[in-house]
């Protein structure tokens, strides 16, 4: 065994994160670590990587009991971690990030040698990177490639991926799988934390499931079907992932005509009607998020028109969009969705303080009732409205964000990657909320990079490619049809530039 974890325990303050973490990884194996948010996966891996010290239990590395007091010790033993949120230095180059802290003895850095080494390494991995690029200019996928290069250059024998594909597009995901397989074939052990059921079959050898801080299952992946896996993860049966009850569409609530914004968005025409959920697919960088931002007034459009509920809007700033009845559930909850240090109640009323205030004075009792109402309605798992929003799990945080927009009485909802980083159970509930919103007459535009999600939830599927709408498909269209529109030219069907050619 490369790595053995026995009965690992860890508490933070009074909160138990791990009760009994068990895991064994062989060399040359891709080991999937699964579980809902808050199950303890990240804590367990941070213990392996030396970022936390366990309160109890045993860690064996190549058969020897070990204790890592800090990440540097784990790294020198050969354990590296690719993080969910990049821990790179954005203002340094790719090469500098790869070799940081290992630039040879003495106070001086040989820039040329470092660049040469980095170039060799990148070529070796066949990554589309340049050694002298600034990391701040890289996509999330590019940043992960830099972290992988760093791990490989350290001579690591165990690589931990913490949800590597949660921020990646379909094609980038496949690229990560190729890399993972490549690393495995070289005899490295790989631990791979993931939420996404549909992608694991292609990469995993073995699977371990954590639930409520304890290992509840461990077996070769082939011995466990998806239903069984979900059962282990949530501790109950989940019948179908999701099913939608479509209603006949009503008035057009969001009408976009000839919208352009340099450099990306070109001639966008899109209508979303009351009661409709329109799915928007496309590769990362196709302009889906940019379109949401332009509709919401975060970015100003160069030309074209936007009408909400029949009224033309300038969309010059979010404030105007909010007042005209548009809600944007952004893809980056931590950055633009939630005030994590503030209470749940503060977050729920943030976009519509007027509803609980008169003459600038807040009615806190009303705020509390309102929050409890949404808690019940969206089944938010929380202790009290005064609890800090940042203490909730990802799924419940997302529900708080949705509550905030429900409180504004918005009619047009833009969901940008609404299920990113949230667990299976919560995903289903987010979809149920969307379904209910639509049935009550809201118009919903849902951007998602997870095709099964779009297939199951959307009534119509609009596909974007390189800043244009490349086509429209009925709900339930096949993944192949969607990907064709997302990747290829619509008419000629030929492959676009080399940079997108990673789809097999």
């Amino acid at each position: 065994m490369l790595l053995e974890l026995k009965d690992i325990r860890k508490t933070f303050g009074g909160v138990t994160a791990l009760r009994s973490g068990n895991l064994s990884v062989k060399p040359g194996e891709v080991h999937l670590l699964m579980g809902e948010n808050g199950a303890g996966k990240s804590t367990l891996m941070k213990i392996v990587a030396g970022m936390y010290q366990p309160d109890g239990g045993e860690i064996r590395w190549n058969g020897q009991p070990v204790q890592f007091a800090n990440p540097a010790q784990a790294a020198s033993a050969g354990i590296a971690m690719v993080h969910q949120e990049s821990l790179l230095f954005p203002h340094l180059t790719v090469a500098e990030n790869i070799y940081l802290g290992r630039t040879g003895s003495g106070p001086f850095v040989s820039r040329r040698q470092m660049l040469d080494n980095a170039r060799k390494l990148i070529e070796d991995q066949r990554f589309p990177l340049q050694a002298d690029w600034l990391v701040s200019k890289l996509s999330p996928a590019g940043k992960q490639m830099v972290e992988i290069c760093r791990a490989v250059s350290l001579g690591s024998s165990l690589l931990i991926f913490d949800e590597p594909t949660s921020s990646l597009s379909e094609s980038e995901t496949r690229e990560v799988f190729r890399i993972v397989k490549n690393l495995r074939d070289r005899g490295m052990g790989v631990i791979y934390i993931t939420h996404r059921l549909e992608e694991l079959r292609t990469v995993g050898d073995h699977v371990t499931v954590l639930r409520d801080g304890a290992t509840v299952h461990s077996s070769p992946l082939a011995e466990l079907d998806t239903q069984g896996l979900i059962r282990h993860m949530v501790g109950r049966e989940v019948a179908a992932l999701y099913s939608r009850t479509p209603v006949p569409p009503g008035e057009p609530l969001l009408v976009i005509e000839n919208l352009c914004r340099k450099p990306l968005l070109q001639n966008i025409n899109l209508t979303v009607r009351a009661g409709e959920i329109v799915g928007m697919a496309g590769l990362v960088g196709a302009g889906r998020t940019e379109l949401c931002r332009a509709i919401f007034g975060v970015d100003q459009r160069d030309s074209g028109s936007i009408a909400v509920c029949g009224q033309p809007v300038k969309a010059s700033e979010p404030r105007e969009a909010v007042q005209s009845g548009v809600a944007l559930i952004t893809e980056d909850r931590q950055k633009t969705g939630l005030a994590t240090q503030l209470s749940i109640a503060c977050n729920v009323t943030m976009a519509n303080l007027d509803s609980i205030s008169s003459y600038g004075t807040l009615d806190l009792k009303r705020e509390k009732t309102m929050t409890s109402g949404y808690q019940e309605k969206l089944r938010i798992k929380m202790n009290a409205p005064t609890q800090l929003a940042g203490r909730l799990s990802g799924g419940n945080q997302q529900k708080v964000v949705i509550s905030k927009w429900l409180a504004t009485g918005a009619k047009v909802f833009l969901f940008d990657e609404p299920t990113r980083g949230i667990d299976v159970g919560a995903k289903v509930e987010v979809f149920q909320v969307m379904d209910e919103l639509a049935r009550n007459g809201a118009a919903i535009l849902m951007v998602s990079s997870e095709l099964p999600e779009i297939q199951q939830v959307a009534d119509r599927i609009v596909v974007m490619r390189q800043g244009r709408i490349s086509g429209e498909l009925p709900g339930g269209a096949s993944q192949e049809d969607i990907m064709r529109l997302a990747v290829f030219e619509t008419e000629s069907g030929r492959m676009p530039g080399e940079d997108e050619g990673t789809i097999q």
Partner: protein
Amino acid sequence: MLQRLLPFLTLITLFVSLSIATPNFLTHLNLSTVVRQTAVINIIALGMTLIIVTSGIDLSVGAILALSGFLGAKAMEAGYSIPMAILIGLTVGTTCGLINGFLITRLKINPFIVTLGMLGVIRGMTLTISNGLPASGVPEGFSFLATGTLLGLPLVLWILVVCAVAMHFVLEYTKLGRYAFAIGSNPDAAYYAGVPVSFHLTFVYAIAGLLTGLAAMIEASRLMTGQPTAGQGYELQAIAAVVIGGGSLRGGEGTVLGTLIGAFIMGLLSNGSDLLGINPYLQQTLIGLAIIVAVTLDELRKRRLPK
């Protein structure tokens, strides 16, 4: 929970130990002195609390205090009535705060930089118009503001209590206060939620300016002159009071009660050192250490909690 109460326990401990250590501490006269000495910093710190909650900072309050106090005193010298002079002081302070807020929100420059610049601008302006000389033609009656009593307690204590209650109300029960927390905790999320960020930020700096103007008139009354060099280093004392009281420079945190406790801890440290005959130069070291200890304890408390 215990650590949340720590500033309060520190204040009590300090109070009790000083009462035991020296017979001169627990007297009406001395306690009134402490209140009068700390009131000015305390009132400025209330405005600073609001600013720090928005994750901003105001380094120019000491300079604003000097300008407002000088112009207020100058008005009395020129024959204006005392209420009129006080009004002038408040207006000058508010205007300076508005300018700060305006520069921060319109030019989108970091508050640290803006107020550092304004510190120089305002201080230099005060020295220029005064030629470095204080305005001293202040009527006798003006001393009432700083030294007067109401119902047996110093008038400044009443003023402080009214300001503190008002600021507490603003922070906890008004849209302005709530938006301040939202902006300080996550400015992007606030902007996306349609919060009028620029308007409220400007308002926040104006309120801090108004409170500084009030503190300036109390200081002028205490000194019975308008000193163009008054208020040097007050900005740091005000920031220290907020931070000792549990406010976070990262924004989104801060309470009026905490700030009051923070200011009084510093006041007692200073007063106690005087009474115990500790070298006044050493007092600065003591207060400096108090800041570091307070912030360290607060950080430790936060680190023990899971993310």
